[in-house]
């Protein structure tokens, strides 16, 4: 099983709140596109901080 961060791009307001709280510097906002780097540890801090609920840590088999 693996955990990963899912970005709902229809909800994302590309505001960058998640970028500033990420302890791994794994997120970057490139204009209106939130990019996720491989360093993501799926800690879920960004998902908590998101004002719009656009981020979700998902568990996959």
């Amino acid at each position: 099983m693996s955990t990963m961060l899912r970005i709902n791009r229809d909800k994302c307001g590309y505001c960058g709140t998640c970028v500033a709280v990420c302890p791994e510097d794994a997120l970057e906002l490139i204009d209106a596109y939130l990019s996720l780097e491989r360093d993501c540890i799926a800690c879920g801090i960004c998902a908590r901080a998101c004002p719009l609920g656009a981020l979700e840590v998902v568990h996959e088999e």
Partner: protein
Amino acid sequence: MKSKYDMLVIGGGPAGALAAKTAAEAGNTVCLIEKRPAIGTPIRCAEGIGKECLLEFIQPDPRWISADIERARLIAPNGTSVSLEQENPGNTVGYILDRKIFDRELVWQAAEAGADIFVKTRATAPIMEGGAVRGAKVMATGSPADIRADVVLAADGTEAQFARWAGLDTTVPLREMMSCAQYLLTDIDIDAASTDFYLGNDVAPEGYLWVFPKGERTANVGIGISGRKSRDGSRAKDYLDRFIGKNFPEGKTIEAIAGGVPVCQPLPCTVADGLMVIGDAARVVDPLTGGGIGNAMYTGKLAAQVASECISAGDCSKAALMPYDAEWRASRMGKSLERNYKVKEFFIALDDKKLNVLAESVASVGLAEFSVSALIRELIKRNPKMLFELKALKDALR
């Protein structure tokens, strides 16, 4: 775009613009890059600024003033309203800006002063040599380039990635990140001269909800809640939607934005070899109000002044740039950040009941002075029974 400048500024908000303008006026070659395709948009701001704060840097211009503010009202959980008026009713105490125009004006002034400006150009990494920042690798509308500079000013706002890449820890703890959402609402009944702040754990846990007028029947209606209070079903947007459904059901949304406001303490050090950090990236947002425009302009200008001297002297080491860090900490802004951090920590720990008691105690008092310290002094004076709890507030004023 040249490959070498005296100063490189990362970010075209108020901090970056003031820095670029100041450094260019001092005769330096300056390059300002902005990753977005347009200066001033999208906004991430409630757009309020105090009058004194603004006048220090620029004369108000109707082109980018949306509303003149005469008073602030704090609305407690039980509806008790505390009105902060100043001595002469009808006088302006602050403004709600139109950031789209305001930010452009500031960058325009930097350009006129001689700075080069590039939009849709983002830094991808600092150029590091022997531990010192010597410029930045950039992506300019799809083309990679190196821009070298004697000193780089990181003005990249809340995200603050450039300083992080250069080795400074800019990560904001979840509890000190205000998770924010805002609508520009029109066709609503408001007091067009008042900024209203709604407090309470059911309204905006560890934050507040604001109604900042943008005209007679239009306002920025937004909210900030602590990141640690943000969960599915109780996010900033959820609280805001509930408030608007109750208070402005007929309002029409012209713009919907989100954002994060760091209300932590400033970075432990805002300079490094070849690097200065300014504005929101330096975490110099007022932790009580969340206001950052004035402090961004102040730190941007000050950093550029110090940098200009260092460039002339041929030494942009951390030690040489340090007077910037020392000066803003000792300044009125630095003292105010320190005090308001303590005041914020006090207020977020209060339950609604105590918040109501405090609001009721000063609701009928005409506060002669429009300031945080005047309000706190009044609260302490009028609540002798809460002396123990208010001690932290009293200490903050020292």
